[in-house]
């Protein structure tokens, strides 16, 4: 009863409504179908969920065991019980993976499958409509799972033994175990593919990761804003920006390449892949001499030789735009141009932009006695706050991620989910920075002076005096941001991320049901946000335990 009376009022309302909601979902097939679609309950969800629960239980107990071994003396009873249970459970699971692998395998298989690159991986059998892993790969996954679980059981056993070691080695080993078991728990909760609740997993994970990154970025902006200019700051930064502009000039001075447009413009014009967009556009819109400002169709070719070959071999191609030296066939030359190749032009422009920006910041900072980086951080926060989240997501998710992919030669090819998370983090980091700043500025100046008069360094003052008090002030608005983020994850559908809202739309279209999907999605979002809000309230209570 005492527990019931300590429940937050809004949770009480939800709890009171819960039987009705459950009754609604249980009795109405419309709602049940909506729920299945929006949660993203995939094929074979039952067996996968069973495997997940078993592995999750073991991982949780293992983590608690590692935690318990560090704080043996003041551990509460429940922690002690979990720690004792951990080893037998881990051993049991390991034995289970040998005796009855079919119980755990569905989950392991689905996690492994979704960790692969589905378009290029050679481990996937694509012969039928539904893609699966090759049987021999499944066997390898099974062996891998057995090995992993056996290792995990050993790790849990070592957690117990680690108490016998002598300090300081003991504390290092114990922290190591806690990080290790914590990481595996984190992977299960936030990284592994959840075939049994894909939609929820995407929405929730996108919000959590974006929140963590946004907080880090926000702290960075605030840190930059607190920089104070020194006597030589303007000199140093001015020199750096001029240096950047110098590098840019160097790239601009590089030799240009000569290209010719050959053949005729009766049909399509072959363009070599990697030709700068600006040049391709000149051809497309007929802006070259004798082009007559009309639109021409183009066709991509892998290299110059292939482009010239297409004039002969492909009926719909009559011309080609190639480097001068490649053109030896003696086709009529329609137009000749020279330009800076992209490998020089891109760095030249990038350095020019950065150099110019830094120069502007330096001059602006010098005028107002501010540090250039502080001016830059403030400028960033102001700009990002003024751009709608949808635009940020589109911009970072498509052109910017594409540019990163090109610049690294395909080395950094982020998934759509990652791009979306980065976009939301960047967008919200601006708000977070303002929240942090307000919290820090709420601390009276006298306290800083008191800190320095006690002989604390700037860093110590920040860590011991400012941050503890500021955190207490910023907890409620930070919680607000998190809830706003959960709702903004629904914008990720433009990056082909199928979150709960996107699944709701799909289900609506397929089933022609107007309101059941809406209501179901609303209920689910409310449950998630209320859960998060309660968690945040609990954090608030913990941080503000003693004084207010």
């Amino acid at each position, binding site marked *: 009863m005492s527990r019931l009376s300590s429940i937050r009022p809004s949770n009480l309302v939800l709890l009171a409504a819960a039987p009705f909601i459950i009754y609604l979902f249980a009795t109405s097939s419309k709602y049940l179908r909506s729920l299945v679609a929006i949660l993203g309950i995939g094929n074979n969800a039952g067996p996968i969920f069973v495997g997940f629960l078993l592995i999750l239980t073991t991982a949780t107990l293992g983590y608690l065991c590692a935690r318990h071994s560090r704080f043996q003396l003041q551990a509460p009873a429940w922690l002690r019980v979990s720690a004792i249970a951990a080893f037998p459970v881990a051993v049991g699971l390991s034995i289970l993976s040998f005796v009855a692998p079919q119980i755990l395998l569905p989950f392991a298989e689905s996690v492994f499958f979704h960790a692969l690159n589905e378009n290029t991986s050679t481990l996937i059998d694509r012969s039928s409509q539904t893609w699966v892993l090759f049987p021999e790969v499944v066997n390898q996954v099974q062996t891998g799972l057995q090995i992993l679980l056996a290792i995990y059981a050993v790790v849990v056993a070592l957690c117990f033994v680690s108490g016998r070691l002598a300090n300081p080695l003991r504390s290092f080993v114990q922290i190591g175990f806690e990080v290790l078991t914590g990481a595996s728990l984190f992977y299960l909760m936030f990284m592994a593919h959840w075939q049994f609740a894909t939609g929820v997993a995407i929405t929730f994970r996108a919000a959590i990761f974006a929140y963590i990154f946004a907080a880090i970025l926000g702290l960075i902006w605030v840190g930059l804003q607190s920089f104070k200019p020194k006597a030589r700051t303007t000199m140093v930064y001015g020199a750096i920006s001029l240096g950047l502009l110098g590098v840019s000039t160097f790239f601009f001075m590089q030799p240009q390449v000569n290209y010719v447009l050959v053949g005729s413009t009766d049909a399509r014009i072959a*363009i070599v892949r990697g030709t700068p967009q600006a040049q391709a556009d000149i051809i497309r819109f007929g802006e070259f001499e004798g082009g007559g400002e009309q639109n021409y169709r183009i066709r991509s070719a892998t290299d110059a030789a292939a482009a010239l070959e297409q004039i002969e071999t492909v009926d719909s191609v009559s011309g080609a735009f190639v480097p001068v030296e490649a053109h030896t066939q003696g086709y009529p030359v329609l137009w000749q141009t020279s330009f800076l190749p992209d490998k020089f032009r891109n760095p030249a422009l990038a350095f020019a932009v950065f150099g110019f920006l830094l120069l502007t910041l330096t001059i602006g900072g010098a005028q107002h006695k501010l540090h250039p980086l502080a001016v830059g951080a403030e400028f960033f926060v102001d700009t990002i706050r003024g751009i709608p989240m949808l635009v940020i997501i589109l911009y970072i998710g498509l052109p910017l991620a594409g540019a990163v992919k090109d610049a690294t030669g395909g080395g950094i090819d982020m998934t759509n989910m990652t791009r979306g998370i980065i976009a939301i983090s960047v967008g919200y980091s601006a708000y977070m920075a303002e929240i942090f700043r307000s919290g820090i500025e709420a601390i009276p100046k006298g306290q800083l002076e008191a800190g320095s008069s006690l002989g604390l360094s700037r860093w110590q003052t920040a860590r011991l005096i400012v941050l503890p008090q500021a955190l207490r002030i910023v907890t409620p608005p930070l919680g607000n941001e998190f809830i706003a983020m959960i709702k903004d994850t629904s914008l990720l559908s433009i990056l*082909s991320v199928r979150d709960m809202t996107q699944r709701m739309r799909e289900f609506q279209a397929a089933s022609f049901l107007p309101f059941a999907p809406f209501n179901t999605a609303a209920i689910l979002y409310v449950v998630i946000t209320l859960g998060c809000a309660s968690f945040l309230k609990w954090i608030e209570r913990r941080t503000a335990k003693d004084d207010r």
Partner: protein
Amino acid sequence: MFKHLIAAATLAAMTAPAAFAADLEGRVLKIGTDATYPPMETVDETTGEIVGFDVDVMNAICERVNCVPNFVNTAWDGIFAALQQGEFDLVISGVSITPEREETMDFSEPYIVVSQAILLQVDNEDMTLDDFKAGGQKLAAQTGTTNAQLAEELVGRENVSLYDNFSAAILALQNADVQGVIIDGTSASAYEQEFAGELTVGITGLQSDPLGIVFQEGDPTVDAINTGLAAIKEDGTLDKLMAQYWGTN
């Protein structure tokens, strides 16, 4: 009711030369689609797979030219931006071939020609096109579609309500926020069946649009897909699919 539609689906002449071996060597094609458009593409509730006419057409083409389709579900809003960024190899999503789109993207030959229609509430089933043109009536459509362009031509921009998917447009019609929804005839009948007694395809035979498969500008893959498309037109696979979906032949 779709007899005229199928009759209008003329077989386009093939332009790809025979020198072109249409074999994509088992390449996995990333195909963008907005699966909120019955019966062209929707997500099957029970399996979670994307199904529909477009999907069947693409599968049939891939059988002929040896490619593996991988459908990626994405919102209509960003679908062409993502294609041009190379996120997808092609887009098949009931896309009409228009001169404006052809300027920035490449289309395959048309695989079906659809005429647009207007869905009305049953109470207004005798409304005519002239009633809409006379003004004061509102039309709904999906953003960035040829349906939206036609709606604008008919009643002017200020009387057009655009929604990001058709389910929302249909809801607006049910609420009587708008008097009609402009939609491709192929889908209109699906909605009419589903909302029998509430909605009706009151006005048909508006502007006809050929639908095509969309590629990045200059992408040579289009030739192989065109070859496959010609093959399924020739051996009747495409007609069979149309008959299966719209019950006419």
